[in-house]
Structure formats: C-alpha cells, structure tokens
C-alpha cells in the first residue's frame, strides 16, 4: 500500500469518527470540538490531494475563524448539561428519513464521475503553475470565474450589511 493510501485511510477514519461524534455528543461544546476535528482531518486530506492552498484556507477560515465564533456563542450561552431540549413535534423525526435518503442519493449522483478520475500528475517543469497552487487558483478566479467571484462578493457584502442592520439597536 502506498504512503498516500495509508494517510488517506487514517485521516478519513478520523474525519468520519469525529463527524459521528458531532451527532452523538449531548454537550454542544463537545459537538463543536468534534466538528473542528472533522475540518482538520479534511484539510489533511486536501494536502494528500496536493491542494495545499485549499488545505491552509480550510484551517484559516473554518477551523480558525468560524468555529471560534461557534464556540464563543456556545460558551456565552452556556446551556446547562442536565436540561435536554424537549422535542415538541415527534412526527418531524420520521420526516428526516426520506430527506436523508434523498441527500445520500443526490451525493452519489454528484460524486459518480469523480470515482473514475485520477489525480493530476506531479508537475515536472513549472511547479508554480500546477493545479491546486495559489498561483493557479488565483489566476482562474480572476479570469475564467471572474463573474461568479464578483457576484459572491456582492452577496457576502449584502449579508454583512443585513447582519449589521439587524444587530443594531434602536437609538444607537
């Protein structure tokens, strides 16, 4: 077995185990910590796929910023352990099964072509311009995908402005 395969199995097992742990934990803080474990393991998997930029950005943005905010909110609210949330509508629980099935089917449909493709070859000449480096991602973001990139930034700007309007108290 090649080195990459061993690494893949190790980090895939970590990712799935911590993903399951998110659901099984009763304490929201432990769930959030497991989510960080999943994100870190995914970032390790990106490194084995030679996408170092995505791996680093995954940690900087998700594990380093968004999850810190999650944990900040959980700590601030500090839900008591011995008060489990009372389920109000029992029937909704069974509605989850068809939706989960639908999502899994969708995932298989989307991932079907990927199973057959292989990794891009290790760059021989110009390592700077290989797929997955900062250079190639930046170039394609600002040439081929310029319109989606700009539209996304406008969307995020709208979300930021909206959040500020909602959070603003009267008389401020």
């Amino acid at each position, binding site marked *: 077995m090649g080195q990459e395969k061993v690494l893949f199995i190790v980090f895939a097992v970590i990712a799935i185990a911590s993903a399951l742990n998110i659901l099984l934990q009763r304490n929201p*803080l432990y769930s959030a*910590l497991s989510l*960080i474990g999943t994100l870190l393991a995914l970032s390790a998997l990106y490194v084995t796929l030679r996408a*170092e*930029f995505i*791996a*680093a*950005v995954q*940690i*900087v943005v998700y*594990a*380093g*910023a968004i999850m*810190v*905010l999650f*944990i*900040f909110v959980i*700590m*601030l609210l500090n839900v008591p352990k011995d008060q489990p949330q009372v389920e109000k509508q029992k029937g909704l629980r069974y509605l989850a099964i068809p939706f989960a099935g639908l999502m899994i089917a969708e995932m298989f449909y989307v991932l079907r072509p990927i199973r057959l493709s292989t990794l891009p070859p290790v760059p021989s000449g110009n*390592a700077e311009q290989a797929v997955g*480096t*900062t250079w190639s991602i930046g170039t394609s973001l600002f040439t081929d995908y310029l319109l989606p990139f700009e539209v996304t930034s406008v969307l995020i700007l709208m979300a930021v402005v909206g959040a500020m309007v909602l959070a603003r108290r009267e008389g401020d």
Partner: protein
Amino acid sequence: MTNLLLEWVIKTIVILLILVTAVAYATLMERKVMAWIQMRVGPNRVGLGKFRLWGLMQPLADGLKMIFKEDIVPLQASHWLYIVAPALSLIPALMTFIVIPYGSQITLFDHTIELHVTRLNVGLLYVLALTSVGVYGIVLAGWSSNNKYSLMGGLRSSAQMISYELALGLSIVSVLLYTGTLDLVEIVEGQQGFHGLAWNIFHYPLLILVFIIFYIASLAETNRTPFDLPEADSELVAGYHTEYSSMKFVMFQMAEYLNLITASSISTTLFFGGWNGPFVGRLPLLGPVYFTVKVFVLIFLAMWIRYTVPRFRYDQLMRFGWKFLLPAAIVNIIISSTVILFMR
C-alpha cells in the same frame, strides 16, 4: 529518502531544543528588562555555586521549582479538556517554526544543509492557520476550568483574536503584493542584494506603515500588554489560567513566549530581510546570527512596550481593532497596489 528523513528529524530536534532554551531565557530577559525599566536590579542571585553569573541560572531554578509544584485539577472542571487545553496551546506554537528560514545553506561533512526545516508553497498561510488554531487552547482552558474569571478570560481571548486576525492578515497582503510569493524561503531570498541590506522595509518605504499595523496586531494576537485583556490581573486574577498550576501553567507560559518569538521571526522574515545582512554571502554562518539578533531586538521592543504602555479598556481594544487598524490595513493595500501598478 532515508537521508532526507534523517536530516528533517535532526533539524526538528535541534530547532525544538533551541526554541525551548530560547523560551526559558526569554523569561529571564523579560524580568531583567522589566527591572532595568523600573530602575531595579532584577534576578541576579542564581548562579553556579559561588559564581553568580548575573542570574543566568534563574530559568533552570524556575523550571525545577515548577516541576515540583502540586498539580491541581479542580473538582468541577471538565476533566479531559482541562488536561488537553495546555497542550492545544503549546503544540501549534511549536509547529509554526518549521517553515521559517534562519539561514541560507551551510556545508557540513561534504553535505549541503539548507537552514530551514521545510519549505511550503503556502508557508505564510500555514503560519496564519496555526496561529488561528492556537486560540483553542486558551478558550478551552477558560471554559473547562469552571471558574468565572477563567471563562471571562477565554471569551475575551476569542473575541480579541478574531478581531485582530483580520488586521494581521490584511497587513500581510500588502507585503505579498510586493514579494509575489507565499513561500517564506523565497521571500527572504528576494531580499538579498546591496550588501545584504535590500530588506523589504528599506526597498519599499511604504512598508513601514504596514509593519506598524502588523506589529500592533501581532502584539494583540500574542496577548502581550497593552492587549493582555485575557489575563488582565487587576480584574480577572490571572484570566484563563487562573486554575492552572505546576507544569500545565508552564505550558501556557511557554506557548505565550513561543508565540512572541514566532511573531518576531515572521516580522523579521517579512520586513527586515530574515537572515540577510552584510558579508552573509561569504560567511553563511552569519545568517543565523543576524536572524537571532533581529528577532531579539523585536522581542526587546515588545518588552519595552509592555512596561511602558498601560492596558487598554475592553471597549477601547475593540474600537481600536475594528475602527482604526482594519481600515488602515485596507487603505495600505489600496496604496500598495496603486504603487505597484505605476512601478511596472
């Protein structure tokens, strides 16, 4: 392959030992600098037998003392997280150093050795990722101690880290616009020339403003005064590590000094030419010397600031980060990119 692996292992161990020693002596340096600024003598007793050696053995005595202290876990604490938290703040602090170059290359036993552990295509992002993960140690320590002062320290720390990370990241963008690479080794190699004095800060004078923003933000990221709100001792006892004792407390202290050393090393690498200096081309061994001197000058600056400037109030800290540092960093990006556009 095995040769390369052996080289990595040896370099990592050497770096680890040097860093741990540097941390121990940074604590002595801090006490000495504080004493000088406050017109006292500082620790000067611990030496070897009859020789006092200006207190040079103080860190060893401190370390020995801390090992023999009682290790307490509070009854109401969240047991596992309480134990894991110090390691979570120490490990990322130690991991950052592998991408920082501290010299060009030397020849030892007919074998050329590059003076950096490894080089990453995304070296700078790797450092940013680790500093952003390092906050969890502090946050979890504050939460798991089950103590209101600790919790306040942890909360303040997470808010402060998020706020100042933005200014830190955006100030680095200005540097990247000039250097055009994220690889720290390449950034330093780009500053060679003019007798080893073509440092970024001399080459592009606009970077002085960027350096000031970067330095202030990195002081906040490493929880140094005037930004030491997470452990503000006048209001929070000792903040997030109130309940910690013995070696667990030492691990938090080590992480704090390691972060200071790392922040100073990154400043040196980005702005002050890394290991570059006069005659370094002829004598490669001068590289690590220049690097160490520059790093310790920046550490001295941080200590000087600590004993001169009073602590911010919490709302002042937030206002300064969001309403001054962040806009200033963005304005700097705009100015830098305009300058580059007209230079080419």
